[in-house]
Protein backbone atom coordinates (compact mmCIF):
# COMPACT_ATOMS: atom_id res chain seq x y z
CA UNK A 1 0.00 0.00 0.00
CA UNK A 2 1.24 3.45 -0.92
CA UNK A 3 0.92 5.66 2.16
CA UNK A 4 -0.45 9.19 1.91
CA UNK A 5 3.02 10.67 2.54
CA UNK A 6 2.19 14.30 1.65
CA UNK A 7 -0.42 14.51 4.38
CA UNK A 8 1.60 12.52 6.91
CA UNK A 9 4.86 14.45 6.49
CA UNK A 10 3.18 17.81 5.89
CA UNK A 11 0.87 17.40 8.88
CA UNK A 12 3.61 16.37 11.28
CA UNK A 13 5.96 19.09 10.03
CA UNK A 14 3.29 21.74 10.59
CA UNK A 15 2.47 20.31 14.01
CA UNK A 16 6.16 20.49 14.92
CA UNK A 17 6.37 24.11 13.72
CA UNK A 18 3.30 25.00 15.74
CA UNK A 19 4.57 23.31 18.90
CA UNK A 20 7.98 24.94 18.56
CA UNK A 21 6.48 28.39 18.04
CA UNK A 22 4.07 27.98 20.96
CA UNK A 23 6.84 26.71 23.25
CA UNK A 24 9.23 29.48 22.29
CA UNK A 25 6.58 32.18 22.76
CA UNK A 26 5.48 30.64 26.09
CA UNK A 27 9.03 30.74 27.44
CA UNK A 28 10.16 34.09 26.11
CA UNK A 29 7.20 36.44 25.82
CA UNK A 30 4.72 37.85 28.29
CA UNK A 31 1.34 36.11 28.11
CA UNK A 32 -0.60 38.83 29.93
CA UNK A 33 -4.25 38.40 30.92
CA UNK A 34 -7.38 38.11 28.84
CA UNK A 35 -8.10 41.76 29.51
CA UNK A 36 -4.61 42.87 28.57
CA UNK A 37 -3.13 40.26 26.29
CA UNK A 38 0.66 40.24 26.23
CA UNK A 39 2.93 39.78 23.26
CA UNK A 40 3.01 36.02 23.77
CA UNK A 41 -0.71 35.22 24.00
CA UNK A 42 -1.57 35.32 20.31
CA UNK A 43 1.49 33.34 19.10
CA UNK A 44 0.97 30.70 21.80
CA UNK A 45 -2.68 30.29 20.82
CA UNK A 46 -1.80 30.11 17.11
CA UNK A 47 1.03 27.66 17.75
CA UNK A 48 -1.26 25.34 19.68
CA UNK A 49 -3.92 25.66 16.98
CA UNK A 50 -1.38 24.78 14.30
CA UNK A 51 -0.20 21.78 16.32
CA UNK A 52 -3.74 20.45 16.62
CA UNK A 53 -4.50 21.10 12.93
CA UNK A 54 -1.26 19.42 11.84
CA UNK A 55 -2.20 16.33 13.84
CA UNK A 56 -5.73 16.38 12.42
CA UNK A 57 -4.19 16.29 8.93
CA UNK A 58 -1.49 13.72 9.72
CA UNK A 59 -3.09 11.13 12.03
CA UNK A 60 -6.00 9.96 9.83
CA UNK A 61 -3.59 9.85 6.89
CA UNK A 62 -1.57 7.13 8.63
CA UNK A 63 -4.31 4.63 7.93
CA UNK A 64 -5.07 5.73 4.40
CA UNK A 65 -3.52 5.09 1.03
CA UNK A 66 -2.67 7.99 -1.20
CA UNK A 67 -0.81 9.01 -4.32
CA UNK A 68 2.65 10.51 -4.37
CA UNK A 69 2.94 13.85 -6.14
CA UNK A 70 5.46 14.11 -8.95
CA UNK A 71 8.36 15.97 -7.38
CA UNK A 72 11.06 17.72 -9.40
CA UNK A 73 14.06 17.75 -7.07
CA UNK A 74 16.44 18.61 -9.91
CA UNK A 75 14.38 21.61 -10.99
CA UNK A 76 13.99 22.76 -7.40
CA UNK A 77 17.74 22.56 -6.73
CA UNK A 78 18.65 24.45 -9.90
CA UNK A 79 16.11 27.23 -9.32
CA UNK A 80 17.07 27.69 -5.67
CA UNK A 81 20.79 27.55 -6.50
CA UNK A 82 20.19 30.20 -9.13
CA UNK A 83 18.42 32.53 -6.68
CA UNK A 84 21.07 31.97 -3.99
CA UNK A 85 23.91 32.53 -6.46
CA UNK A 86 22.35 35.81 -7.49
CA UNK A 87 21.62 36.89 -3.93
CA UNK A 88 25.01 36.04 -2.48
CA UNK A 89 26.96 36.96 -5.59
CA UNK A 90 25.39 40.32 -6.38
CA UNK A 91 27.69 42.41 -4.14
CA UNK A 92 30.82 40.32 -4.84
CA UNK A 93 30.58 39.39 -8.52
CA UNK A 94 28.69 42.42 -9.72
CA UNK A 95 25.41 42.57 -11.59
CA UNK A 96 26.70 41.27 -14.94
CA UNK A 97 28.42 38.12 -13.72
CA UNK A 98 25.78 37.32 -11.10
CA UNK A 99 22.95 37.60 -13.63
CA UNK A 100 24.67 35.54 -16.32
CA UNK A 101 25.63 32.84 -13.83
CA UNK A 102 22.15 32.72 -12.26
CA UNK A 103 20.48 32.40 -15.69
CA UNK A 104 22.85 29.59 -16.72
CA UNK A 105 22.22 27.66 -13.49
CA UNK A 106 18.46 28.19 -13.71
CA UNK A 107 18.33 26.94 -17.30
CA UNK A 108 20.08 23.64 -16.50
CA UNK A 109 16.94 21.56 -15.86
CA UNK A 110 15.03 22.93 -18.88
CA UNK A 111 13.81 20.18 -21.20
CA UNK A 112 15.95 21.21 -24.17
CA UNK A 113 19.48 20.07 -24.90
CA UNK A 114 22.42 22.16 -26.02
CA UNK A 115 24.46 25.04 -24.67
CA UNK A 116 23.95 27.50 -27.50
CA UNK A 117 20.52 28.70 -26.50
CA UNK A 118 21.50 28.78 -22.83
CA UNK A 119 24.44 31.11 -23.50
CA UNK A 120 22.36 33.27 -25.81
CA UNK A 121 19.60 33.49 -23.19
CA UNK A 122 22.11 34.44 -20.48
CA UNK A 123 23.50 37.19 -22.69
CA UNK A 124 20.04 38.54 -23.52
CA UNK A 125 18.75 38.52 -19.94
CA UNK A 126 21.97 40.10 -18.64
CA UNK A 127 21.76 42.85 -21.24
CA UNK A 128 18.12 43.53 -20.43
CA UNK A 129 18.77 43.55 -16.69
CA UNK A 130 21.59 46.07 -16.96
CA UNK A 131 19.49 48.19 -19.29
CA UNK A 132 16.33 48.17 -17.16
CA UNK A 133 17.57 48.11 -13.57
CA UNK A 134 20.94 49.86 -13.77
CA UNK A 135 20.46 52.37 -16.58
CA UNK A 136 16.66 52.68 -16.49
CA UNK A 137 15.75 52.56 -12.79
CA UNK A 138 19.18 53.83 -11.67
CA UNK A 139 19.55 51.20 -8.96
CA UNK A 140 22.94 51.52 -7.28
CA UNK A 141 24.51 48.16 -8.01
CA UNK A 142 28.12 47.27 -8.81
CA UNK A 143 28.32 46.15 -12.43
CA UNK A 144 31.66 44.28 -12.30
CA UNK A 145 33.46 42.08 -9.78
CA UNK A 146 35.15 43.90 -6.95
CA UNK A 147 38.88 43.37 -7.36
CA UNK A 148 41.21 43.11 -4.40
Amino acid at each position, binding site marked *: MQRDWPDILGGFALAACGAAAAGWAWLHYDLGSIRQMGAGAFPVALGLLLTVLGLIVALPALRRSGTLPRAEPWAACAVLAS*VLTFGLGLRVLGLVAATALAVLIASLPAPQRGWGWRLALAACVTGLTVLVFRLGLQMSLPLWPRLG
Partner: protein
Amino acid sequence: MSTWDGLLTGLSFALQPGVLIYCVLGVMLGTFVGVLPGIGAMAAISLLLPITYYISAEAALIMLAGVYYGAQYGGAVASILLRLPGTPQSAVTALDGYPMARSGRAGVALFAAMASSFVGSMLGILVLVLLAGWLSRAATAFGAADYAAMMVLGLVAASTIGSERPAKGFAMIALGMLLGCIGTDVNSGTMRFTFGRTELLDGVNLVALAMGLFGVAEVIGNVRDPDRQGVAERIGLRQMAPRREDLRRMPLPMLRGASLGSFFGALPGTGSTLSSFLSYALERRVARQPERFGHGAIEGVSGPEAANNSAAITAFVPTLTLGIPGDPIMALMLGALVIHGVQPGPMMLEARPEMFWGLVASFGIGNLLLLVLNLPLIGIWVSMLRIPFRLLYPAILIFVCLGVYSVRGLTFDIVAVAGIGLAGYLLALARFSPALLLLGFVLGPLIETNLRRALLISRGDPMVFLERPISAGFVLAIAALLLLSAWQALRRRR
Protein backbone atom coordinates in the same frame (compact mmCIF):
# COMPACT_ATOMS: atom_id res chain seq x y z
CA MET B 1 -20.18 63.27 -2.56
CA SER B 2 -22.91 61.95 -4.81
CA THR B 3 -22.33 58.94 -7.01
CA TRP B 4 -22.40 61.10 -10.09
CA ASP B 5 -19.83 63.59 -8.80
CA GLY B 6 -17.75 60.67 -7.67
CA LEU B 7 -17.73 59.09 -11.09
CA LEU B 8 -16.76 62.41 -12.70
CA THR B 9 -13.94 62.90 -10.19
CA GLY B 10 -12.80 59.36 -10.84
CA LEU B 11 -12.91 59.70 -14.61
CA SER B 12 -10.97 62.94 -14.64
CA PHE B 13 -8.41 61.36 -12.34
CA ALA B 14 -8.07 58.07 -14.19
CA LEU B 15 -7.82 59.72 -17.60
CA GLN B 16 -4.74 61.76 -16.68
CA PRO B 17 -1.92 60.46 -18.86
CA GLY B 18 0.27 59.70 -15.82
CA VAL B 19 -2.43 57.43 -14.40
CA LEU B 20 -3.89 56.06 -17.62
CA ILE B 21 -0.54 54.60 -18.62
CA TYR B 22 -0.50 52.39 -15.51
CA CYS B 23 -4.01 51.21 -16.28
CA VAL B 24 -2.95 50.26 -19.82
CA LEU B 25 0.25 48.67 -18.55
CA GLY B 26 -1.68 46.69 -15.96
CA VAL B 27 -4.32 45.26 -18.28
CA MET B 28 -1.77 44.41 -20.97
CA LEU B 29 0.54 42.68 -18.54
CA GLY B 30 -2.43 40.95 -16.96
CA THR B 31 -3.59 39.56 -20.30
CA PHE B 32 -0.03 38.46 -21.04
CA VAL B 33 0.40 36.48 -17.82
CA GLY B 34 -3.16 35.20 -18.07
CA VAL B 35 -2.40 33.78 -21.50
CA LEU B 36 0.83 32.14 -20.35
CA PRO B 37 0.07 28.98 -18.43
CA GLY B 38 2.37 28.64 -15.46
CA ILE B 39 2.30 32.21 -14.20
CA GLY B 40 -0.91 33.35 -12.57
CA ALA B 41 -2.25 36.72 -11.48
CA MET B 42 -0.84 36.16 -7.99
CA ALA B 43 2.69 35.78 -9.33
CA ALA B 44 2.31 38.77 -11.64
CA ILE B 45 1.00 41.02 -8.88
CA SER B 46 3.79 39.87 -6.56
CA LEU B 47 6.35 40.66 -9.25
CA LEU B 48 4.94 44.15 -9.68
CA LEU B 49 4.79 45.03 -5.96
CA PRO B 50 8.31 46.56 -5.90
CA ILE B 51 7.47 48.82 -8.84
CA THR B 52 4.58 50.28 -6.87
CA TYR B 53 7.10 51.90 -4.52
CA TYR B 54 7.98 54.31 -7.28
CA ILE B 55 4.43 55.46 -8.10
CA SER B 56 1.50 56.93 -6.18
CA ALA B 57 -0.77 54.67 -4.16
CA GLU B 58 -3.69 55.39 -6.50
CA ALA B 59 -1.74 54.52 -9.64
CA ALA B 60 -0.35 51.40 -7.94
CA LEU B 61 -3.82 50.15 -7.06
CA ILE B 62 -5.11 50.87 -10.57
CA MET B 63 -2.19 48.99 -12.14
CA LEU B 64 -2.41 45.95 -9.87
CA ALA B 65 -6.18 45.75 -10.30
CA GLY B 66 -5.64 45.92 -14.07
CA VAL B 67 -3.32 42.93 -13.85
CA TYR B 68 -5.98 41.04 -11.93
CA TYR B 69 -8.91 41.52 -14.29
CA GLY B 70 -6.67 41.53 -17.35
CA ALA B 71 -5.49 38.07 -16.34
CA GLN B 72 -9.11 36.90 -16.34
CA TYR B 73 -9.41 37.87 -20.01
CA GLY B 74 -6.10 36.22 -20.86
CA GLY B 75 -6.82 33.10 -18.84
CA ALA B 76 -9.75 32.32 -21.07
CA VAL B 77 -7.52 32.25 -24.17
CA ALA B 78 -5.30 29.44 -22.88
CA SER B 79 -8.34 27.61 -21.50
CA ILE B 80 -10.16 27.65 -24.80
CA LEU B 81 -7.25 26.94 -27.15
CA LEU B 82 -5.18 24.47 -25.13
CA ARG B 83 -7.44 23.30 -22.31
CA LEU B 84 -4.69 24.66 -20.01
CA PRO B 85 -6.32 27.22 -17.73
CA GLY B 86 -4.02 30.23 -17.43
CA THR B 87 -5.78 31.13 -14.18
CA PRO B 88 -7.84 28.91 -11.85
CA GLN B 89 -10.87 31.13 -12.48
CA SER B 90 -10.95 30.14 -16.13
CA ALA B 91 -10.68 26.38 -15.57
CA VAL B 92 -14.42 25.97 -16.13
CA THR B 93 -14.22 27.83 -19.40
CA ALA B 94 -12.18 24.96 -20.83
CA LEU B 95 -15.08 22.52 -20.32
CA ASP B 96 -17.01 23.89 -23.27
CA GLY B 97 -14.52 26.33 -24.76
CA TYR B 98 -12.03 23.63 -25.70
CA PRO B 99 -14.61 21.42 -27.46
CA MET B 100 -15.70 24.53 -29.39
CA ALA B 101 -12.08 25.08 -30.43
CA ARG B 102 -11.74 21.45 -31.46
CA SER B 103 -14.73 21.76 -33.75
CA GLY B 104 -13.21 24.80 -35.47
CA ARG B 105 -15.10 27.44 -33.53
CA ALA B 106 -12.21 28.72 -31.40
CA GLY B 107 -12.74 32.27 -32.65
CA VAL B 108 -16.39 32.28 -31.64
CA ALA B 109 -15.52 30.88 -28.21
CA LEU B 110 -12.93 33.62 -27.72
CA PHE B 111 -15.44 36.25 -28.80
CA ALA B 112 -18.01 34.86 -26.36
CA ALA B 113 -15.45 34.85 -23.54
CA MET B 114 -14.43 38.44 -24.15
CA ALA B 115 -17.88 39.86 -24.67
CA SER B 116 -19.15 38.06 -21.56
CA SER B 117 -16.16 39.20 -19.53
CA PHE B 118 -16.95 42.75 -20.52
CA VAL B 119 -20.63 42.54 -19.63
CA GLY B 120 -19.75 40.84 -16.35
CA SER B 121 -17.31 43.58 -15.46
CA MET B 122 -19.81 46.32 -16.23
CA LEU B 123 -22.41 44.79 -13.93
CA GLY B 124 -19.69 44.27 -11.34
CA ILE B 125 -18.82 47.97 -11.45
CA LEU B 126 -22.47 48.90 -10.92
CA VAL B 127 -22.76 46.60 -7.91
CA LEU B 128 -19.43 47.86 -6.55
CA VAL B 129 -20.59 51.47 -6.63
CA LEU B 130 -23.95 50.71 -5.01
CA LEU B 131 -22.59 48.37 -2.34
CA ALA B 132 -19.51 50.38 -1.44
CA GLY B 133 -21.47 53.51 -0.61
CA TRP B 134 -23.95 51.59 1.50
CA LEU B 135 -21.34 49.46 3.23
CA SER B 136 -19.02 52.31 4.12
CA ARG B 137 -21.95 54.12 5.78
CA ALA B 138 -22.92 50.95 7.64
CA ALA B 139 -19.32 50.24 8.57
CA THR B 140 -18.99 53.38 10.69
CA ALA B 141 -20.96 51.42 13.31
CA PHE B 142 -18.32 48.65 13.32
CA GLY B 143 -16.26 48.27 16.49
CA ALA B 144 -13.06 46.33 17.12
CA ALA B 145 -14.96 43.18 18.07
CA ASP B 146 -16.99 43.31 14.84
CA TYR B 147 -13.85 43.71 12.73
CA ALA B 148 -12.12 40.80 14.43
CA ALA B 149 -15.17 38.55 14.01
CA MET B 150 -15.61 39.52 10.38
CA MET B 151 -11.99 38.81 9.53
CA VAL B 152 -12.18 35.41 11.20
CA LEU B 153 -15.34 34.75 9.18
CA GLY B 154 -13.44 35.61 6.01
CA LEU B 155 -10.65 33.19 6.87
CA VAL B 156 -13.05 30.40 7.80
CA ALA B 157 -15.04 30.93 4.62
CA ALA B 158 -11.90 30.94 2.47
CA SER B 159 -10.72 27.62 3.83
CA THR B 160 -14.05 25.78 4.02
CA ILE B 161 -16.15 26.82 1.03
CA GLY B 162 -15.41 24.69 -2.01
CA SER B 163 -12.52 22.95 -0.27
CA GLU B 164 -12.20 19.19 0.08
CA ARG B 165 -9.86 19.29 3.03
CA PRO B 166 -10.70 22.26 5.28
CA ALA B 167 -8.18 21.13 7.93
CA LYS B 168 -5.33 21.68 5.49
CA GLY B 169 -6.65 25.15 4.67
CA PHE B 170 -6.96 26.06 8.35
CA ALA B 171 -3.42 24.83 8.96
CA MET B 172 -2.13 27.13 6.21
CA ILE B 173 -4.01 30.09 7.65
CA ALA B 174 -2.64 29.40 11.14
CA LEU B 175 0.89 29.15 9.71
CA GLY B 176 0.41 32.41 7.83
CA MET B 177 -0.86 34.15 10.96
CA LEU B 178 2.16 32.85 12.91
CA LEU B 179 4.47 34.27 10.23
CA GLY B 180 2.54 37.51 10.62
CA CYS B 181 3.51 37.58 14.33
CA ILE B 182 7.21 37.83 13.45
CA GLY B 183 8.64 41.26 14.16
CA THR B 184 8.06 43.98 16.73
CA ASP B 185 4.76 43.70 18.61
CA VAL B 186 3.02 47.06 18.22
CA ASN B 187 1.39 47.04 21.65
CA SER B 188 4.34 46.13 23.85
CA GLY B 189 7.39 46.66 21.68
CA THR B 190 8.48 43.06 22.29
CA MET B 191 10.55 41.60 19.44
CA ARG B 192 8.86 38.33 18.54
CA PHE B 193 10.65 35.50 16.73
CA THR B 194 13.36 37.80 15.42
CA PHE B 195 16.24 35.68 16.79
CA GLY B 196 18.50 38.71 16.90
CA ARG B 197 18.20 39.51 13.16
CA THR B 198 17.65 43.21 12.61
CA GLU B 199 16.23 42.38 9.17
CA LEU B 200 13.20 40.81 10.87
CA LEU B 201 12.32 43.74 13.15
CA ASP B 202 9.68 45.01 10.70
CA GLY B 203 8.38 41.49 10.21
CA VAL B 204 8.62 39.20 7.22
CA ASN B 205 8.68 41.31 4.08
CA LEU B 206 5.37 40.90 2.21
CA VAL B 207 7.13 41.26 -1.15
CA ALA B 208 9.64 38.51 -0.31
CA LEU B 209 6.87 36.23 0.94
CA ALA B 210 4.64 36.74 -2.09
CA MET B 211 7.52 36.40 -4.57
CA GLY B 212 8.80 33.25 -2.88
CA LEU B 213 5.41 31.59 -2.65
CA PHE B 214 4.08 32.56 -6.06
CA GLY B 215 7.13 33.46 -8.16
CA VAL B 216 9.84 30.98 -7.23
CA ALA B 217 7.58 28.09 -6.21
CA GLU B 218 5.49 28.31 -9.39
CA VAL B 219 8.61 28.48 -11.54
CA ILE B 220 9.96 25.30 -9.93
CA GLY B 221 6.68 23.52 -10.55
CA ASN B 222 6.67 24.41 -14.26
CA VAL B 223 10.35 24.17 -15.27
CA ARG B 224 10.13 20.67 -16.62
CA ASP B 225 6.93 21.19 -18.60
CA PRO B 226 7.61 20.28 -22.20
CA ASP B 227 7.19 22.96 -24.84
CA ARG B 228 3.59 23.41 -25.82
CA GLN B 229 2.79 22.26 -29.31
CA GLY B 230 2.04 25.20 -31.54
CA VAL B 231 -1.55 26.22 -31.89
CA ALA B 232 -2.34 25.31 -35.44
CA GLU B 233 -5.16 27.71 -36.09
CA ARG B 234 -4.75 31.28 -37.16
CA ILE B 235 -7.42 33.36 -35.54
CA GLY B 236 -8.44 36.76 -36.83
CA LEU B 237 -11.47 38.96 -36.62
CA ARG B 238 -13.31 37.01 -39.30
CA GLN B 239 -13.12 33.74 -37.36
CA MET B 240 -14.49 35.48 -34.30
CA ALA B 241 -17.77 36.58 -35.85
CA PRO B 242 -20.56 34.73 -34.07
CA ARG B 243 -23.56 33.25 -35.83
CA ARG B 244 -27.01 34.63 -35.12
CA GLU B 245 -27.80 31.55 -33.05
CA ASP B 246 -24.72 32.16 -30.89
CA LEU B 247 -25.80 35.73 -30.25
CA ARG B 248 -29.24 34.53 -29.20
CA ARG B 249 -27.78 32.07 -26.71
CA MET B 250 -25.38 34.46 -24.99
CA PRO B 251 -27.24 37.31 -23.23
CA LEU B 252 -29.13 35.39 -20.54
CA PRO B 253 -26.17 33.28 -19.38
CA MET B 254 -24.10 36.49 -19.27
CA LEU B 255 -26.62 38.22 -17.03
CA ARG B 256 -27.10 35.21 -14.77
CA GLY B 257 -23.34 34.70 -14.50
CA ALA B 258 -22.69 38.36 -13.84
CA SER B 259 -25.32 38.47 -11.07
CA LEU B 260 -23.94 35.34 -9.42
CA GLY B 261 -20.41 36.67 -9.69
CA SER B 262 -21.12 40.11 -8.32
CA PHE B 263 -22.91 38.58 -5.34
CA PHE B 264 -20.29 35.97 -4.44
CA GLY B 265 -17.36 38.24 -5.26
CA ALA B 266 -18.43 40.72 -2.59
CA LEU B 267 -18.67 38.05 0.12
CA PRO B 268 -15.41 37.52 1.96
CA GLY B 269 -13.70 34.21 1.33
CA THR B 270 -15.62 33.02 -1.71
CA GLY B 271 -14.39 34.87 -4.76
CA SER B 272 -14.27 34.40 -8.45
CA THR B 273 -13.28 30.74 -8.85
CA LEU B 274 -16.34 29.58 -6.94
CA SER B 275 -18.67 31.87 -8.87
CA SER B 276 -17.50 30.62 -12.24
CA PHE B 277 -18.12 27.02 -11.13
CA LEU B 278 -21.55 27.93 -9.77
CA SER B 279 -22.45 29.74 -12.96
CA TYR B 280 -21.52 26.72 -15.06
CA ALA B 281 -23.64 24.46 -12.86
CA LEU B 282 -26.55 26.90 -13.09
CA GLU B 283 -26.38 27.15 -16.90
CA ARG B 284 -26.38 23.41 -17.16
CA ARG B 285 -29.40 23.12 -14.92
CA VAL B 286 -31.53 25.71 -16.70
CA ALA B 287 -30.56 24.62 -20.23
CA ARG B 288 -33.24 23.03 -22.41
CA GLN B 289 -30.71 20.50 -23.72
CA PRO B 290 -28.21 19.93 -20.89
CA GLU B 291 -26.57 17.16 -22.93
CA ARG B 292 -24.94 19.80 -25.16
CA PHE B 293 -22.73 20.87 -22.25
CA GLY B 294 -19.22 19.51 -22.44
CA HIS B 295 -19.50 19.34 -26.24
CA GLY B 296 -19.13 23.02 -27.02
CA ALA B 297 -22.15 24.84 -25.60
CA ILE B 298 -21.55 28.57 -25.87
CA GLU B 299 -23.55 29.15 -22.67
CA GLY B 300 -20.84 27.22 -20.80
CA VAL B 301 -18.31 29.85 -21.88
CA SER B 302 -20.49 32.93 -21.52
CA GLY B 303 -21.85 32.33 -18.02
CA PRO B 304 -18.62 31.49 -16.17
CA GLU B 305 -16.60 34.19 -17.92
CA ALA B 306 -19.16 36.84 -16.97
CA ALA B 307 -19.23 35.45 -13.43
CA ASN B 308 -15.49 35.47 -12.78
CA ASN B 309 -15.04 38.99 -14.13
CA SER B 310 -17.86 40.51 -12.14
CA ALA B 311 -16.59 38.72 -9.02
CA ALA B 312 -13.10 40.11 -9.62
CA ILE B 313 -14.55 43.60 -9.43
CA THR B 314 -16.95 43.27 -6.52
CA ALA B 315 -14.15 41.58 -4.52
CA PHE B 316 -12.89 45.13 -4.01
CA VAL B 317 -15.97 46.02 -1.94
CA PRO B 318 -14.84 44.58 1.42
CA THR B 319 -11.21 45.45 0.71
CA LEU B 320 -11.84 49.13 0.12
CA THR B 321 -14.74 49.85 2.45
CA LEU B 322 -13.77 47.75 5.46
CA GLY B 323 -10.07 47.24 4.85
CA ILE B 324 -10.65 43.49 4.97
CA PRO B 325 -9.40 41.49 1.98
CA GLY B 326 -11.77 38.68 1.03
CA ASP B 327 -9.28 36.57 -0.90
CA PRO B 328 -5.50 36.22 -1.28
CA ILE B 329 -5.30 38.51 -4.30
CA MET B 330 -7.11 41.22 -2.40
CA ALA B 331 -4.69 40.60 0.47
CA LEU B 332 -1.85 41.48 -1.89
CA MET B 333 -3.69 44.64 -3.01
CA LEU B 334 -4.18 45.64 0.62
CA GLY B 335 -0.52 44.92 1.24
CA ALA B 336 0.41 47.25 -1.61
CA LEU B 337 -1.74 50.01 -0.11
CA VAL B 338 -0.29 49.50 3.36
CA ILE B 339 3.20 49.82 1.86
CA HIS B 340 2.11 53.29 0.80
CA GLY B 341 0.77 54.04 4.26
CA VAL B 342 -2.86 53.91 3.13
CA GLN B 343 -5.15 51.92 5.42
CA PRO B 344 -8.45 51.39 3.60
CA GLY B 345 -11.56 51.64 5.72
CA PRO B 346 -15.03 53.18 5.92
CA MET B 347 -13.53 56.69 5.81
CA MET B 348 -11.63 56.19 2.58
CA LEU B 349 -14.48 57.10 0.23
CA GLU B 350 -14.60 60.54 1.82
CA ALA B 351 -10.95 61.01 2.68
CA ARG B 352 -9.39 59.83 -0.58
CA PRO B 353 -12.09 60.04 -3.26
CA GLU B 354 -9.50 59.71 -6.02
CA MET B 355 -8.48 56.33 -4.70
CA PHE B 356 -11.94 54.80 -4.77
CA TRP B 357 -13.55 56.62 -7.68
CA GLY B 358 -10.35 56.60 -9.71
CA LEU B 359 -10.25 52.82 -9.35
CA VAL B 360 -13.91 52.52 -10.34
CA ALA B 361 -13.32 54.66 -13.42
CA SER B 362 -10.20 52.66 -14.27
CA PHE B 363 -12.27 49.48 -14.18
CA GLY B 364 -14.49 50.93 -16.88
CA ILE B 365 -11.59 52.24 -18.94
CA GLY B 366 -9.53 49.09 -18.51
CA ASN B 367 -12.32 46.73 -19.50
CA LEU B 368 -13.19 48.83 -22.51
CA LEU B 369 -9.52 48.77 -23.52
CA LEU B 370 -9.40 45.01 -23.07
CA LEU B 371 -12.43 44.55 -25.29
CA VAL B 372 -11.31 46.99 -27.98
CA LEU B 373 -7.67 45.94 -28.02
CA ASN B 374 -8.07 42.21 -27.57
CA LEU B 375 -10.42 41.64 -30.46
CA PRO B 376 -7.90 42.86 -33.06
CA LEU B 377 -4.86 41.71 -31.07
CA ILE B 378 -6.08 38.18 -30.53
CA GLY B 379 -3.62 36.81 -33.07
CA ILE B 380 -0.72 38.22 -31.04
CA TRP B 381 -2.00 36.67 -27.81
CA VAL B 382 -2.44 33.34 -29.55
CA SER B 383 1.15 33.46 -30.77
CA MET B 384 2.28 34.20 -27.19
CA LEU B 385 1.05 30.75 -26.31
CA ARG B 386 3.96 29.40 -28.34
CA ILE B 387 6.69 31.08 -26.27
CA PRO B 388 8.49 28.23 -24.50
CA PHE B 389 8.54 28.57 -20.74
CA ARG B 390 12.27 27.74 -20.70
CA LEU B 391 13.05 31.12 -22.25
CA LEU B 392 10.91 32.99 -19.77
CA TYR B 393 11.58 31.57 -16.35
CA PRO B 394 15.27 32.48 -15.94
CA ALA B 395 14.32 36.09 -16.65
CA ILE B 396 11.43 35.83 -14.17
CA LEU B 397 13.84 34.63 -11.48
CA ILE B 398 16.22 37.55 -12.05
CA PHE B 399 13.26 39.92 -11.94
CA VAL B 400 12.13 38.36 -8.65
CA CYS B 401 15.58 38.76 -7.10
CA LEU B 402 16.10 42.36 -8.19
CA GLY B 403 12.50 43.26 -7.32
CA VAL B 404 12.91 42.03 -3.76
CA TYR B 405 16.34 43.62 -3.48
CA SER B 406 15.04 47.00 -4.66
CA VAL B 407 12.64 47.26 -1.70
CA ARG B 408 15.21 47.51 1.08
CA GLY B 409 18.56 46.92 -0.61
CA LEU B 410 19.26 43.85 1.50
CA THR B 411 20.66 40.64 0.01
CA PHE B 412 19.14 38.96 3.09
CA ASP B 413 15.76 39.32 1.36
CA ILE B 414 16.96 37.48 -1.76
CA VAL B 415 18.21 34.58 0.37
CA ALA B 416 14.88 34.64 2.22
CA VAL B 417 13.05 34.38 -1.12
CA ALA B 418 14.96 31.18 -1.89
CA GLY B 419 13.98 29.69 1.47
CA ILE B 420 10.34 30.77 1.16
CA GLY B 421 10.28 29.45 -2.41
CA LEU B 422 11.46 26.02 -1.28
CA ALA B 423 8.88 25.95 1.51
CA GLY B 424 6.18 27.09 -0.90
CA TYR B 425 7.11 24.40 -3.42
CA LEU B 426 7.03 21.66 -0.78
CA LEU B 427 3.67 22.92 0.54
CA ALA B 428 2.19 22.98 -2.97
CA LEU B 429 3.52 19.45 -3.58
CA ALA B 430 1.73 18.25 -0.45
CA ARG B 431 -1.38 20.07 -1.67
CA PHE B 432 -1.44 22.78 0.98
CA SER B 433 -2.63 26.11 -0.37
CA PRO B 434 0.06 28.84 -0.28
CA ALA B 435 -2.63 31.40 -1.17
CA LEU B 436 -4.38 30.79 2.15
CA LEU B 437 -1.04 31.18 3.93
CA LEU B 438 -0.72 34.64 2.43
CA LEU B 439 -4.29 35.53 3.42
CA GLY B 440 -3.53 34.51 7.01
CA PHE B 441 -0.29 36.48 6.93
CA VAL B 442 -2.03 39.71 5.93
CA LEU B 443 -5.09 39.28 8.15
CA GLY B 444 -3.27 37.87 11.20
CA PRO B 445 -1.85 41.14 12.55
CA LEU B 446 -5.17 42.94 11.88
CA ILE B 447 -7.06 40.26 13.80
CA GLU B 448 -4.61 40.38 16.71
CA THR B 449 -4.84 44.17 17.00
CA ASN B 450 -8.64 44.19 16.89
CA LEU B 451 -8.95 41.22 19.25
CA ARG B 452 -6.71 42.84 21.82
CA ARG B 453 -8.51 46.15 21.49
CA ALA B 454 -11.94 44.51 21.79
CA LEU B 455 -10.95 42.63 24.94
CA LEU B 456 -9.37 45.73 26.45
CA ILE B 457 -12.57 47.72 25.87
CA SER B 458 -14.74 44.96 27.30
CA ARG B 459 -12.42 44.61 30.34
CA GLY B 460 -11.52 41.05 29.45
CA ASP B 461 -15.06 39.80 28.91
CA PRO B 462 -15.07 37.47 25.85
CA MET B 463 -18.87 37.68 25.76
CA VAL B 464 -18.45 40.98 23.91
CA PHE B 465 -18.33 38.98 20.67
CA LEU B 466 -21.84 37.66 21.30
CA GLU B 467 -23.34 40.78 22.86
CA ARG B 468 -22.72 43.13 19.93
CA PRO B 469 -25.32 42.30 17.28
CA ILE B 470 -22.97 42.72 14.29
CA SER B 471 -20.26 40.54 15.72
CA ALA B 472 -22.82 38.00 16.98
CA GLY B 473 -24.04 37.64 13.40
CA PHE B 474 -20.52 36.93 12.18
CA VAL B 475 -19.89 34.45 15.00
CA LEU B 476 -23.13 32.68 14.09
CA ALA B 477 -22.03 32.47 10.45
CA ILE B 478 -18.62 31.11 11.51
CA ALA B 479 -20.31 28.43 13.62
CA ALA B 480 -22.63 27.51 10.75
CA LEU B 481 -19.71 27.16 8.30
CA LEU B 482 -17.71 25.04 10.73
CA LEU B 483 -20.68 22.76 11.44
CA LEU B 484 -21.41 22.43 7.73
CA SER B 485 -17.86 21.41 6.88
CA ALA B 486 -17.68 19.00 9.82
CA TRP B 487 -20.93 17.42 8.64
CA GLN B 488 -19.58 17.12 5.10
CA ALA B 489 -16.39 15.48 6.39
CA LEU B 490 -18.39 12.94 8.40
CA ARG B 491 -20.64 12.16 5.45
CA ARG B 492 -17.65 11.61 3.18
CA ARG B 493 -16.11 9.16 5.61
CA ARG B 494 -19.14 6.85 5.51
